[in-house]
């Protein structure tokens, strides 16, 4: 992002010269039932919908493939291929398929196709970011022509959400298809609102509307998706009318696009949180030392120290100044609107004096020394965010060094770089987001005590452990009653914040840019879908 900003700032400076005497390029109006061209920041790595489930791939696959249940722009479940569903008992769910849904080749969508899709999605060789995490605990049974029964190992209230991750493919085609058949389009046959036309890796994806779609028909008869990785180029492509819509508008361009009457911006707070994690696990943490470098007991074991850190960091300033509005200050694990968000948790104002007093009370009147590690190419302006946080902590007397490194080095060290294969860092910046749109995934994977055998705490790189919260999380995960479950999760969130397990920094805000004659409401799952954009007027 750093490079992008410089490119563009440099660019805009000189743009002033030609603007003075050149006519602006004509606007390209979009029309209903015409073509929508989308410029995306990340290229899709495969057309196989069960390959890596990254945002770019999921965005593309959702045009072509339906799910049993869909998640709307706020990640609320809405009917997909199933018109209704209910839990029969604590371990069993039943889904009733809609009539009239067909694949692009005319075959009707059947229960067998669903079962086949779930099986394949768990077993694509070489798929690293796969769907096992969502499908592993389930068995599927056909109980009628239109009825699918899902049996889970333990009570699982979020079966519909978990199944919403998995694209439904045709059994007849999928059984014999090779991985390359998806990229060639031969096997890329779903039941979604768009059909595959063409795919050239890194260059273009072309889709045409499925006129036989069971749901509401989208506004565009043809969709062209082009990867444009450089932020400045993406903005230029939008301004020149080469594309109608772009995702991930760079922070540095937000302001001048807001002043452009031909461009509108759309926003959505992502269900993802960027936060600072402490080493809770070890008695001596390698990167936390006395100021002279001598060994001290792990200071992050003290709640007061953690609280002082949280209080010292001005999240509002980071969101407003460093992220230029591309992030909303965070106070808990998930933003408002996500199931389990606790509205009673306040966003505290930073208070340096109070934080310093807390640090003194905790027995560190002179502070201590710690290194803040993090990636420098993963999140929006990640290294600047770390620098800012470090300066704020320096004000309460912490001697802090920032070590930002490429993500490909960072993640290995953060997960298993320490002695004996444990997480290496003492204090580090990471992010977490789950496709299921509930706080439970964050609680289960980040906050619950790490346990290799059950899979709890799989992303708990700080090795945070609080038996009380663990019990509540497990209770919530087995509670089918939505009202009761939400109460439990809200309590879990409150306890997590009270105990300062992590320092939440911000929720990224996805910013889309589009021509002003296109209407769009934003999404919370960072996906860019042609179906969400409408021709205005």
């Amino acid at each position: 992002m750093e490079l992008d900003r410089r490119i563009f700032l440099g660019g805009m400076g000189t743009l002033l010269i030609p603007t003075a005497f050149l006519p602006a390029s004509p606007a390209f109006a979009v029309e209903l039932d015409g073509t929508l061209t989308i410029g995306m920041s990340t290229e899709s790595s495969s057309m196989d919908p069960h390959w890596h489930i990254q945002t770019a791939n999921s965005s593309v696959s959702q045009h072509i493939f339906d799910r049993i249940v869909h998640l709307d722009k706020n990640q609320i479940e809405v009917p997909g291929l199933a018109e209704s569903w209910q839990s029969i008992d604590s371990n069993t769910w039943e889904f009733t398929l809609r009539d009239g849904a067909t694949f692009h080749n005319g075959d009707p969508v059947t229960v067998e196709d669903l079962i086949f899709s779930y099986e394949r999605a768990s077993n694509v060789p070489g798929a690293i970011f796969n769907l096992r995490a969502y499908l592993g605990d389930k068995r599927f049974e056909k109980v009628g022509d239109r009825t699918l029964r899902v049996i889970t190992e333990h009570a699982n209230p979020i079966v519909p959400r978990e199944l919403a991750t998995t694209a439904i493919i045709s059994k007849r085609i999928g059984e014999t298809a090779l991985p390359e058949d998806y990229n060639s389009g031969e096997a890329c046959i779903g039941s979604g609102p768009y059909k595959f036309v063409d795919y050239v890796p890194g260059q273009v994806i072309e889709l045409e509307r499925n006129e036989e779609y069971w749901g509401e028909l989208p506004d565009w008869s043809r969709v062209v998706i082009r990867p444009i990785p450089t932020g400045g180029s993406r903005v230029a492509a939008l301004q020149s009318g080469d594309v109608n819509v772009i995702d991930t508008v760079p922070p540095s361009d937000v302001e001048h696009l807001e002043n452009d009457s031909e461009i509108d911006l759309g926003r959505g707070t992502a269900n993802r949180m960027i936060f600072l994690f402490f080493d809770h696990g070890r008695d001596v943490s390698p990167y936390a030392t006395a100021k002279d470098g001598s060994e001290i007991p792990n200071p992050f074991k003290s709640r007061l120290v953690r609280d002082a850190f949280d209080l010292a960091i001005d999240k509002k300033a980071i969101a407003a100044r460093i992220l230029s509005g591309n992030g909303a200050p965070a106070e808990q694990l998930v933003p408002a609107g996500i199931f389990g968000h606790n509205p009673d948790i306040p966003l505290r104002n930073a208070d340096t004096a109070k934080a310093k007093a807390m640090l003194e009370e905790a027995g560190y009147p002179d502070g201590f020394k710690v290194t803040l590690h993090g990636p420098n190419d993963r999140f929006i302006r990640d290294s600047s965010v770390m620098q800012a946080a470090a300066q704020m902590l320096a004000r309460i007397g912490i001697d802090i060094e920032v070590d930002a490194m490429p993500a490909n080095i960072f993640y290995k060290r953060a997960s298993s770089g320490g002695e004996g294969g444990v997480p290496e860092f003492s204090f580090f910046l990471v992010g977490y987001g789950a496709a299921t749109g509930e706080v439970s995934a964050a609680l289960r994977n980040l906050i619950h005590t790490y346990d290799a055998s059950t899979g709890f705490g799989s992303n708990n790189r700080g090795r945070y452990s609080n038996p009380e919260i663990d019990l509540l999380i497990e209770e919530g995960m087995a509670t089918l009653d939505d009202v009761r479950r939400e109460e439990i999760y809200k309590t879990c969130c409150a306890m997590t914040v009270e105990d300062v397990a992590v320092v939440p920094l911000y929720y990224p805000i996805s910013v889309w840019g589009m021509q002003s004659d296109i209407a769009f409401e934003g999404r919370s799952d960072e996906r860019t879908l042609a179906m969400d954009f409408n021709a205005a007027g």
Partner: protein
Amino acid sequence: MFASILQRVGQAVFVMFCMTIVVFIGMNLIGNPIDLLISPNATPVERQRLIAEFGLDQAIWVQYWRFLVGLAHLDLGVSYIFNEPALRVILQRFPATMELALMATFLSVLIGVPLGLYAGLRPYSPVSRLIMTSSILGFSLPTFWVGMMFILLFSVQLGWLPSSGRGETVTVFGMQWSFLTLDGLSHLLLPALNLALFKASLILRLTRAGVAEVLPQDYVRLAHAKGLSARRVVYVHVLKNVMIPVVTVVGLEFGSVIAFSVVTETIFAWPGMGKLIIDSINNLDRPIIVAYLMIIVLLFVTINLVVDILYTVLDPRVQFSKTGKR
């Protein structure tokens, strides 16, 4: 000539071999793609299963041996990211890079040689001074900045050319080429010009220096004295002798455009190999990185060979066989 080619091929194989070892050791030190790409909800058991599935839990020399065995079957492995054979992923992007490199080189020679010749023949004319001064801009302005300027001027402001991407393609020899269509050419022009700017300046300066060096030499004066037309002296006697360093540089630059035109490819969203290699390094996609570097080594060796052959055509005194060299 044949022996010399054989020797080159031997060198290439040796370099490729060393390179694969370096890449294997290097990648092993950095990390693994599993930690980078795995679902944030995956269990530790699942992580172990994946690491085992990729054979990343094996000792590095076992992994390397497996790679060599695959290589013997002409199998460079399957990309971790694209789920396709590494070689195919690279070759898919090869035409895009190739046509960009050819176009850029063509433009740079087209601009650089005539201007350099003019500046060399009339060193004191104001036009020559202007050419020389502008050439400084050509190699001092950073590529990414010039690229953005091109886009802002020609696409956003004037609306003459598309801002990024690759245009319509036609299939020739089973590969997708865009330079054969008008739409494709219009997409190709800006990135090619952007890449050509630096090279044109370089060629221009080389040509001018060469001309200045050759002009006062005896054979040129003799040619004039023989009564040959000025045109023939310039185009045959002068230009041909000036071309040797130019050909070397064009060859090397051509190779580097193919291998490392990352910045331009990224800014113009050009789906070439340069962008692919950077993405692959970021994602630790080892099969792609290894295959790519092997291809590049082969490419450079080939280009150098072609350049050497061209030398002998341009200057019969140049010999590269063993007896001539030592």
